[in-house]
């Protein structure tokens, strides 16, 4: 496969990976009843849309034989607030764990999706030859890493209590 064709394939796959995340977080936003959870899932979905836009612009630039400049997009990162003890759900959420089966599964699935994206971008960064494109994939891996940290932190905060509370739901 020619270099450019291979790059197109990577970008197409990346857009699919981002779309999977977008679709999943939109579903989670619709389903959760926690107000903070709704906002954070919406924000995660927006991030995935932004990633798709960046990737589409990369695709277009390569197609038109123009140079993709990492400097033009490097300040787009939206920082997800991860310093609070409960970065995804409200403080009150912990008191409703026995009714929060979907949300606990949403955390596990979100973690798997983010891990997959990070692996994909790290591999793509290694494979890319142009420095600006390498930087872009490393930047996206880093951005997904922030999502992952927030999801893991939230899961750790709730997991033990959830297992005690739910007693191996659904039984």
């Amino acid at each position, binding site marked *: 496969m020619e270099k450019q064709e291979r790059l197109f394939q990577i970008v197409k796959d990346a857009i699919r990976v981002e*779309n999977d995340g977008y679709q999943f977080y939109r*579903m989670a936003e619709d*389903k959760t009843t926690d107000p903070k959870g709704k906002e954070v899932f919406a924000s995660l979905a927006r991030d995935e849309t932004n990633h798709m836009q960046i990737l589409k612009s990369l695709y277009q630039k390569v197609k038109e034989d123009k140079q993709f400049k990492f400097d033009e997009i490097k300040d787009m990162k939206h920082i997800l607030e991860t310093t609070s003890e409960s970065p995804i759900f409200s403080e009150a959420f912990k008191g409703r764990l026995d009714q929060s*089966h979907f949300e606990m*599964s949403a955390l596990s*699935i979100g973690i798997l999706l983010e891990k997959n994206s990070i692996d994909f971008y790290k591999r793509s960064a290694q494979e890319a030859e142009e420095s600006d494109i390498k930087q872009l994939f490393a930047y996206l891996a880093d951005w997904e890493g922030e999502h992952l940290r927030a999801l893991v932190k939230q899961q750790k905060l709730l997991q033990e209590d959830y297992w005690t509370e739910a007693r*191996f739901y*659904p039984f």
Partner: protein
Amino acid sequence: MLEKPAQIISVLKEATQAENDGYHFYKSAAARTRDPKGKAAFRSLAQDELDHASALKGLQHAVRSKSKFKLGRKRQTKRSSHSTKSPLFSTQFKKRLKEHNFELSALRIGQMLERNSLEFYSKHARRSRNPEMKSLFGYLAEWEKDHLRALVQQERYLRGKL
């Protein structure tokens, strides 16, 4: 040396959580898709994950109470990934398909969950010395493989590769 009951319970707990994740995902996907066949297929996948969780709970109970574990019979699912090109969605669905829609993502997320479960069950079936866990995990790995096959086949069909 046989694993300690606490070790077995810990593995079973992790497996149960993964089955619950699959259950919630497929249940939500059934509610979200507009394709009637897709709705039924996702509901059926959700029910399978509940059955798996039930079997895991049964083994957990047997380990705690030091009793014998008996594996129930596999529920016959009507899905067959071999007899139809479009095992999960209606054939009309392909005509309405757009590149970035929920259903294609649901198929890919489902594949990720099934692969994850398949690896987990295969690894523990290989490593465990507990015959009941070995046998249950081998059985569940096969079942998840059926799901994975159907999801892969459906994605390939929708993307025009079949």
